[in-house]
C-alpha cells in the first residue's frame, strides 16, 4: 500500500518537479525542529529558510537549544502524534530506530533523482540510509579534529605549528614558560571524546579507528598503536589549565582567540568564533590536522522527515530536501556554518583556507574517517564516553587501567 502510493507519488513528482521544481501549487508550510540557536548557526540556517520561502514555502522555526533537548522534544512529538515537518539529527545512527519504527518518510525519490549517492561520501550514504532507502538529507560535513592555534602565541613561545601529537606535547613547555595556556580544552564529555578520537585517528591512524569503532574489534585494544594513543592522551592531561572542567567549547575557543591559550582541538564550527572576533584563518590563527596521515574525522547534520499522510506535508518535506541539497544552498549555508558542503560537485574556491584544506583532504577517501556516531551505536559511544572522561579527569588513572576499562565498555555495550 505504502510503496504503491510512494511509486505514484514519485511518478507524479518526477514529472512535475523536473518541469518546475520550486513552484508548488500551494504555499507549503514546514515546521522544522533544530538546535541551531547561536548567532552563526542561525545565520547559516537562514540560507535554507530564504531559499525555501523563495520557492513558495513557509518556514515555521522551532529552535531548541541543545541537541539532546531538541532531539527529545522532536522524538516525543513524533511519538505523540504531533510531528514536525522535519527535524535535525546528527549524521549517524541516531535516527535509525525511528526509521525502523516506520515513523519517518523516506526521501528516496528526491535522492535518486538528484543522484545523491554519487555526490556524498560513502560513509554518509550508509548513515542516511535505512534498509537501502535514503531517509535523511545531509546538509554539511563537519571536520571534527582540527587543531586551531593562535599564531602570535606560538611565535612568541618560539614553536612551529604542530604536525604530530608529540609536537603538541613538546611545545607545551615553551608555551607555558611564555605564560600562556598551552592547550585549551573544554570540560564536557563530548569535548573529551572529540580530543581522544582526534588522537586516535591522528596518532593511531584510520585503520585502528575503524577496527575499534566500526568493527568492534576488541583485539585492537591490545595493539602497540592503541597503547601509544592511550599514552599520548594521558600525557595531554598535564598541559591543560585549571579552568577546564565544565567549560563550554566556545569559551575555550575564546581563550585561543584572545591569546590566552595557544591551541585548541575542535570541530570546524570553532571557526565561527574566530570569525566573530574578526580573525581570518592563515593570519591571526591557523588550523592543522595533527598526525602524519592527515586523517579527517567527518560528521555532520541531517534532517529527517517524520511520517505523515498529509499530502501537503509530504510535498513540503520533499521540497525541503530539494532545497537543502541544492548546490547554491549548500555553498551559502556551509560558508556561514564553517563546514564543508556535503556534495562534492560544488565549487569551494570561494571558501576560507581551512575549508579548502578540508575539501582537499576530502577528495582522498583514504583520509576520511567517519565520526563515531556514524559507525557505532549511541550506546557504545556513550559507554566509551564514560571511560574517556574518567581517564581524562583522573590524573591517577594510568594507561593500563584505561585500556582495561575501555575493554569492559566495548564488551558490555558493543
Amino acid at each position, binding site marked *: 500500500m505504502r510503496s504503491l502510493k510512494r511509486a505514484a507519488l514519485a511518478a507524479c513528482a518526477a514529472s512535475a518537479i523536473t518541469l518546475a521544481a520550486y513552484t508548488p501549487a500551494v504555499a507549503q508550510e514546514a515546521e522544522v525542529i533544530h538546535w541551531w540557536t547561536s548567532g552563526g548557526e542561525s545565520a547559516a540556517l537562514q540560507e535554507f529558510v530564504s531559499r525555501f520561502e523563495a520557492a513558495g514555502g513557509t518556514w515555521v522555526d522551532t*529552535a531548541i537549544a541543545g541537541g539532546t533537548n531538541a532531539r527529545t522534544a522532536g522524538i516525543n512529538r513524533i511519538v*505523540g502524534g504531533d510531528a514536525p515537518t522535519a527535524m535535525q539529527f546528527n549524521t549517524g545512527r541516531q535516527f535509525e530506530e525511528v526509521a525502523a519504527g516506520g515513523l519517518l518518510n523516506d526521501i528516496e525519490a528526491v535522492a535518486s533523482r538528484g543522484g545523491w549517492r554519487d555526490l556524498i561520501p560513502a560513509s554518509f550514504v550508509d548513515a542516511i540510509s535505512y534498509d537501502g532507502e535514503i531517509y535523511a538529507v545531509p546538509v554539511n560535513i563537519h571536520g571534527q579534529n582540527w587543531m586551531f592555534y593562535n599564531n602570535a602565541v606560538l611565535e612568541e613561545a618560539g614553536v612551529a605549528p604542530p604536525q604530530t601529537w608529540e609536537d603538541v606535547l613538546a611545545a607545551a613547555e615553551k608555551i607555558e614558560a611564555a605564560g600562556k595556556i598551552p592547550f585549551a580544552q573544554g570540560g564536557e564529555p563530548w569535548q573529551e571524546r572529540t580530543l581522544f578520537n582526534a588522537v586516535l585517528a591522528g596518532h593511531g591512524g584510520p585503520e585502528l579507528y575503524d577496527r575499534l569503532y566500526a568493527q568492534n574489534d576488541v583485539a585492537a585494544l591490545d595493539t602497540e598503536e592503541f597503547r601509544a594513543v592511550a599514552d599520548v592522551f594521558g600525557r595531554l592531561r598535564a598541559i591543560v589549565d585549571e579552568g577546564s572542567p565544565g567549560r563550554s567549547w566556545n569559551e575555550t575557543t575564546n581563550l585561543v582567540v584572545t591569546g590566552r591559550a595557544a591551541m585548541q582541538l575542535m570541530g570546524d564550527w570553532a571557526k565561527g568564533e574566530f570569525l566573530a572576533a574578526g580573525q581570518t584563518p592563515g593570519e591571526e590563527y591557523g588550523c592543522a590536522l595533527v598526525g602524519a596521515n592527515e586523517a579527517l574525522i567527518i560528521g555532520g547534520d541531517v534532517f529527517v522527515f517524520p511520517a505523515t499522510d498529509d499530502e501537503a506535508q509530504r510535498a513540503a518535506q520533499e521540497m525541503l530536501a530539494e532545497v537543502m541539497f541544492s548546490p547554491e544552498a549548500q555553498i551559502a549555508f556551509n560558508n556561514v556554518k564553517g563546514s564543508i558542503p556535503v556534495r562534492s560537485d560544488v565549487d569551494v574556491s570561494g571558501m576560507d583556507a581551512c575549508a579548502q584544506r578540508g575539501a582537499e583532504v576530502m577528495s582522498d577517501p583514504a583520509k576520511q574517517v567517519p565520526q563515531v556516531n556514524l559507525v557505532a551505536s549511541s550506546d557504545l559511544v556513550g559507554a566509551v564516553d564514560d571511560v574517556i572522561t574518567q581517564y581524562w579527569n583522573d590524573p591517577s588513572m594510568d594507561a593500563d587501567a584505561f585500556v582495561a576499562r575501555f575493554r569492559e565498555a566495548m564488551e558490555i555495550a558493543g
Partner: protein
Amino acid sequence: MTSAVVTSTDRARGGITARGRRPRRLTAGRIGLYAFLASAALFFLLPAWIMLLTSLKPMEEIRQGTIFALPLAPTLEAWAAAWGSACTGLTCEGISVGFWNSVRILVPSVILSVLLGALNGYALSFWPVRGANVLFAILLAGAFVPYQVFLYPLVRMFSSVGIYNSLAGIVLVHVIFGMPIMTLLFRNFYASLPRELFNAARVDGGGFFTIFLRVMLPMSTPILVVAVILQVTGVWNDFILGLTFAGRENLPMTVQLNNIVNSTHGVRLYNVDMAATVLTGVVPLAIYFVTGRWFVRGIAAGAVKG
C-alpha cells in the same frame, strides 16, 4: 482542651513574634550572633549579587574585571536586550514571549492544582473512604520518583486524548505533578483543624461541597499562601515539563532562558545572560518577598507537621 480554633489562630499570631530569649544588653554573645547571621546572609546573597552586578556591566568591563567588581558604568542595555531582542534561533524577541507564556501556564496550573489539593486534603481528612489513604500513600511515594520516568508514557497518553503540546496539556502535567505535595499540605492542615467545626457544619446542614467552600476554604488562608507559593515557584521554575509538553506556541520562560544562555554567540554575552536570568527569577522572587511573612506563618499553622 481549650478551643482549638482559638489556639490555632493564637498560634498563627504567635508565629511571627519571637519567643526566644529577650536580650538585655549588647553582649559579646549578641555581637557574635549578629556576626553569624550577617555572614550567613552574605553567603546567601552572593550569587544574586553576582548576577545583578554582571547584568549591569557592559561586556568590556566583564572581560577585564573580576566578577565582584562594581560596574563602573552601569547600564540597563543588557536588560533591554534580554527582555526584547536577544536571539534564539531565527527569532530575536528576547524572553518577553516566554514571560507571557509562563504566565498563561502559571495561572491555571496554580489555581487548579491548589484547589484540587485542597479538595483532596479536605476529603481525606474529613470524609473517610476506604482505600483513600492507600491512594494517598501511593501518591506520596510517587513524589519521590524522578519524573523523567513518567515523561514517555505521559506523552503517549496525552497524544491519545489530543492534548499533547497544548496549553491544556502542560497545565494538566503541572496539576498531576503538583498533586502529592498539595494534597499533603492540605491534608495535614485540615487534620489539625478541630473536627467539631466540621461536625457543627454537618449538623447545620452542610453537604460535602458546601462545607468545603463555605467553612473550610475561608479558614485555609495560611495554608493557601504556602500552597500558592510552592506551586508558583515550582511551575515557574519548571524546565523539562514545559519543554516536553507545552508545545512550541507555549514554551515557558525557562526554556527561552536556556535557549538564550546556551545559544553560542561568538562571544558569550554574560551580561545579557545574567539579565535574562534575573528576569526569569523575578516572579517567584517577588512572590517570596511579598508573601514571605505569611509563608512562615502558614508553615507555623501546621502546614508541614509531618
